[in-house]
C-alpha cells in the first residue's frame, strides 16, 4: 500500500493499517488483501465484479471491513457485493470508498450492496465516502444499498459523505418483515459545484416493523442536494423520516418525502427543515468569543457530528 492509499484507507475506514478480523481491501479494481475467519467467509463472484460475504448464524462481536480505494485517475468500476447474514448473528460491517484523483479524467465507483438478514440477525453498517485530488478530474460515486430484513432482523446504517465527491446518487431500498427494524443515519456535506442526491424507498411489510431515517446535510458554495424518500406502510408499522438541512452561500436543497399508509395501523411521520444557520446561534457563540466564521464552523461540525 502506498501513502496515498494509506491516507484514503484512514479516511474511509478509520484504519491506519490492515484491520483485524475479516476484511477485503480493493484498490484500483484489484484485490489488495483479504482475510476470512472461522465464521465469516468472503468469496469472489464469478459472474460479475464483486464479492459475497457470508456470515454464519450466531456469529457475534465480529467485524468485516471492505474498503475500496481508487487512486488511479480515470478509474471507473461497478462492483456488486452481497452480504448474507445468518440467523441471530450480530456483526459490524464497515464499507467505504476513497478516491484520490490527481489527474484530469473522471474517477467513478458504483457499488451495489445487497444485504440479506435472516431472522433476528443484527448488523451495524457503516459507510463512508471520501474524495480528494489536486487535478481537475471529477470524483463520482453512486452507491446502491438494498436491504432485505426477515423477522426480527435489525439493521443500523450510518452513511457519511463529507468531502470531495463531485457527484453522487445514493439509492437505498429496503423491505422489512414482522418486527424488523431499519435505522438509517445519513450525513452529507457538499461544496463547490457538487451534486448529491439521496433516494430512499422502504416497504414496511411486517407487523411491528419500524424504520427511522434521519438525514442531516449541509450544502455550501453553489452545491445542490436532493432528498427523496418513499415509505410505504403496508402493515401495523411505524415509520419516521427526518430531513434536516443547513444551506450556506448559494447552496440549494430539495426535500421530497412521500409517505403511503396502506394499512389502517400504519403510523408514518415525516419532518423536514431546510434553512440557513439561525442568526441567534451565531450571536450566542460570538458572545462566547468566537468570530462569525468560527461560530459557523462549530455549528456545522456539531450538526454533522
Amino acid at each position, binding site marked *: 500500500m502506498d501513502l496515498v492509499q494509506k491516507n484514503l484507507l484512514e479516511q474511509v475506514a478509520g484504519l491506519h493499517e490492515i484491520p483485524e478480523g475479516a476484511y477485503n481491501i480493493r484498490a484500483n479494481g484489484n484485490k489488495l488483501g483479504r482475510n476470512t475467519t472461522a465464521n465469516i467467509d468472503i468469496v469472489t463472484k464469478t459472474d460479475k465484479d464483486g464479492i459475497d460475504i457470508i456470515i454464519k448464524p450466531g456469529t457475534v462481536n465480529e467485524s468485516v471491513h471492505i474498503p475500496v480505494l481508487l487512486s488511479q485517475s480515470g478509474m471507473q468500476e461497478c462492483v456488486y457485493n452481497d452480504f448474507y447474514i445468518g440467523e441471530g448473528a450480530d456483526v459490524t460491517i464497515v464499507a467505504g470508498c476513497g478516491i484520490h484523483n490527481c489527474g484530469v479524467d473522471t474517477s467513478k465507483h458504483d457499488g451495489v450492496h445487497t444485504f440479506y438478514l435472516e431472522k433476528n440477525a443484527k448488523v451495524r453498517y457503516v459507510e463512508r465516502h471520501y474524495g480528494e485530488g489536486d487535478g481537475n478530474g471529477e470524483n463520482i460515486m453512486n452507491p446502491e444499498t438494498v436491504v432485505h430484513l426477515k423477522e426480527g432482523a435489525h439493521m443500523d446504517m450510518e452513511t457519511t459523505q463529507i468531502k470531495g465527491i463531485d457527484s453522487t446518487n445514493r439509492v437505498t431500498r429496503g423491505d422489512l418483515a414482522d418486527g424488523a427494524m431499519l435505522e438509517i443515519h445519513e450525513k452529507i456535506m457538499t461544496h463547490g459545484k457538487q451534486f448529491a442526491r439521496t433516494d430512499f424507498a422502504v416497504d414496511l411489510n411486517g407487523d411491528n416493523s419500524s424504520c427511522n431515517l434521519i438525514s442531516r446535510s449541509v450544502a455550501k458554495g453553489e452545491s445542490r442536494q436532493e432528498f427523496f424518500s418513499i415509505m410505504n406502510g403496508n402493515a401495523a408499522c411505524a415509520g419516521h423520516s427526518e430531513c434536516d438541512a443547513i444551506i450556506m452561500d448559494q447552496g440549494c436543497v430539495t426535500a421530497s418525502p412521500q409517505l403511503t399508509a396502506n394499512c389502517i395501523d400504519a403510523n408514518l411521520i415525516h419532518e423536514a427543515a431546510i434553512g440557513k444557520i439561525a442568526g441567534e446561534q451565531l*450571536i450566542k457563540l460570538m*458572545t*462566547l*468569543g468566537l468570530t462569525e466564521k468560527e461560530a459557523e464552523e462549530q*455549528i456545522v461540525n456539531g450538526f*454533522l457530528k
Partner: protein
Amino acid sequence: MLELRNITYEVDDNQENKEILKNVSVTIKDHFVAITGPNGGGKSTLAKMIAGIIRPTSGQILLDGEDITELDITERAKKGISFAFQQPVHFKGLTVKDMITIAAGREMSVGDICDILSEVGLCAREYIDREINSSLSGGELKRIEIAMIAARGTKLSIFDEPEAGIDLWSFSSLIKVFEKMRDEINGTILIISHQERILNIADRIIVIADGELRQVGSREEVLPQLLHTTSACQTLEEKL
C-alpha cells in the same frame, strides 16, 4: 467599570420614529447590579447593546475607560463581556460539554466541566453529553446558559431575566446560584430582573421605564419606593 453615556436607540416603526432608549447615562461599578422596570421599558435592549448585539443610534459605551461602542460582539466578548440570553438558544448536535468548552475557551476535562455544572446545580454525569435542544427543560437550559457565563469568568457578566420562563420551584434554587455567584465571581454581575429576591441581594438597583433612566441607587434607597409607588413600576408591583 462600565459607563453608558447618552445612549439613545431609535427604530423605524411604520415610518414613525420610536425611541426605545432615551439619552440613558449611567455608570456601573458595583459588584452586583440589578436593572428592573416594566416590560417593554428598554432593559433587554440596553443589555444587548452592552454585549454589542444592538448598536446605539447615538451615545457611547466605555469599558474600564475604553470606548467599545464600535466593537463587534466577538471583540467585546474578548474584552471581558458575557451575556446570558433570556431565551437560551437551541443547537442541533452541540452538547453541554461542547458549549462549556467553547465558553471557557480552553480544553476542559470532565472534572472541570463537573465543577462548572455543579455551580448551577446540575450533575455532570447526567448532562455532559446532552444536546442543547428541546429535550432539555426551560429550567435546565437556563442553568446551562448560566454555566457558560460562569465558565467564562469575565469581568462583566450580564444576565437577561434569568427567571423568565422557569417555574417557581426551579427559580428558588436558581436564586441560590446567584447568591453563590455573587460571593464567588470577581468582577461585575449585571442582572435584569423583576424578582424581589434578586433585587434584595443587589448592591445597586437601576430602574428603567419608557426608555428612560428613572432611578439609580442602593437597594435601601430604591426598593421601598419600587414596592410602594404604583407609578414607578406597575408590573413589578403586580408581580410582588
